């Protein structure tokens, strides 16, 4: 505050011009903000992607909101969001806290954990498509009864197979976040607790976890908003199948628009996606003290 007061007059004379922010704002506006407007417009048109869009009133919205396919996709996306969060958060939290320890071997583990982050989503999908193959996959070839399932062919199993592969891809990233967060907790807290006789579990529960709550918020936000964008993995891994078992909202949008050439309907689905993303962020900001986290970040 004090520095701001001192320099305020100087800044007013010669603060950097808005012009400097303009290139970034323009680029972002052209490819993200204006498209949001266009997609709303397109959702009221009939368009096959080639000719000119024709006004169609609320037809697409009527279809989108009453179609079983889209409703199912929306429901599936929410379920996926919840299950993924429940699976990934505890694993990455525990792993992150674990590898934050000072021992050499833990640092080494963290090095290997990082590997999935380097592999492109398309490649990860291809790897697991083959690994989980009912004929030539790992479970089948090794004759492991538990693993020998038709993972991607059974509607119920396919959903959890996707959850697992997403976790495989993203747990390393969230582990990194928790590792970094844990390292920032002052060791004096643990020393004091140990002197008071608190065991490891008590320390984890009463020091580590409360101290990591901003990291939990950051990680969860990225995870939840990310759930709205898992397109490429599902597209390559299952194509949305079997049946509609893994047809999440982004994939539903892609298939409707770019495979069935119903861009208008696909635009309506896109608007639902944007709305879900914004709503989710607003909820997170409102209820988790995200804004406090910002200021703390700036202060550290």
């Amino acid at each position, binding site marked *: 505050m004090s520095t701001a007061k001192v*320099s305020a007059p100087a800044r007013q004379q010669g603060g950097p011009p808005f012009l400097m*922010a303009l290139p*970034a704002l323009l680029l972002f506006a052209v490819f993200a903000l204006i*498209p949001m407007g*266009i997609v709303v417009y397109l959702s009221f048109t009939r368009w096959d992607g080639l000719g000119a869009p024709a006004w169609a009133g609320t037809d697409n919205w009527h279809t989108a909101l009453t179609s079983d396919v889209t409703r199912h996709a929306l429901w599936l996306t929410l379920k996926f969001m919840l299950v993924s969060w429940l699976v990934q958060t505890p694993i990455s939290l525990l792993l992150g806290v674990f590898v934050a320890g000072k021992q050499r071997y833990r640092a080494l583990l963290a090095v290997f954990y990082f590997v999935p982050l380097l592999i492109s989503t398309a490649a990860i999908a291809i790897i697991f498509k083959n690994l989980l193959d009912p004929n030539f996959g790992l479970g089948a070839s090794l004759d492991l009864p538990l693993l020998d399932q038709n993972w991607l062919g059974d509607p119920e199993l396919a959903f959890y197979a996707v959850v697992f592969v997403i976790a495989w891809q993203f747990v390393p990233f969230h582990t990194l976040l928790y590792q*970094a967060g844990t390292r920032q907790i002052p060791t004096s807290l643990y*020393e004091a607790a140990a002197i008071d*006789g608190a065991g490891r579990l008590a320390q984890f529960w*009463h020091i580590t976890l409360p101290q990591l709550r901003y990291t939990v918020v950051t990680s969860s936000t990225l995870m939840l908003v990310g759930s709205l964008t898992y397109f490429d993995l599902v597209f390559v891994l299952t194509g949305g199948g079997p049946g509609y078992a893994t047809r999440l909202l982004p994939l539903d949008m892609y298939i409707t628009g770019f495979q069935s050439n119903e861009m208008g309907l696909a635009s309506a689905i896109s608007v639902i996606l944007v709305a879900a993303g914004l709503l*989710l962020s607003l909820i997170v900001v409102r209820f988790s003290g995200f804004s406090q986290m910002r200021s703390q970040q700036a202060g550290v």
Partner: protein
Amino acid sequence: MSALSHAPQTDSEARVPQSSAAPSTPPGRLARLRRTNSPGTLGGLLWLLIVLIPVYWVVVTSLRSREGFFDANPLALPTDPTLENYRLVLDSGYTHFLWNSVVVTAGATLLTLAVSFLAAYAIVRGTSRALRWTFSVFLLGLAIPLQATIIPVYYLIAKAQMYDTLGAIVLPSAAFAIPLTVIILVNFLRDIPDELYESMRADGAGHWRMLWSLALPLSRPALITVTIYDALNVWNGFLFPLILTQSPDKRVLPLFVWSFQGEFTINIPAILAAVVLSTLPILALYVVGRRQLIGGLTAGFGK
């Protein structure tokens, strides 16, 4: 800050009655607490297996012959390893797609960095309402899923006669990297003390001088972070290349692996060789710059 002081004391006092006995041997107790964590070690090793078995399987399978794949134990080392699969991938134009990926990644990352750094500098140093408003736009922009705008982006790119060019991937990729890049840079630039700027101003420096010879060198760590993060994202991007390009010679690596898989459906060792080759460039960078890579990523999202 208030969080730092509250939680721990109250609980440890309430829960542990024998606290008076503890102070006699704190160092030994601490050492013991740090050393023995068998459930943690077990869980850590289990996850290591989950991470490494698929990777190991990919590598050994890519070295098998096509016939050898069907009757081999999938986790055994190949009896007579062959590089035939890798030759097949290299003959399918791998180096060309590698070059496309490099061009797209470098182009998008440089563009993002240049415009984001200017914006972040202006947002931190400026006072105008327009700049504050710009920052809010970027904050909100984080929540826009890029999938949701792909149809209009496709429409715009087609209208601009850019469809099926590498530039068609570069521009939207850069645009979607801007919000997070600006926010990370802003958070970092805020910590540069005003006094440094003031003393430069006293020497008669203008904004471009201060930006170039003060803000830029001081934000090196943050710049490394966002470079790595943005480059990884663009490099592995799939949706924009899938929708905004069409001809085989405009493919980038993720799309190449995908289409290669479609073409060679039954030649699994060759498909996995393509997976290995598409990952190799990043893996090589990782081996060389591991510390900065991990350090950069965690610093950017630290609490």
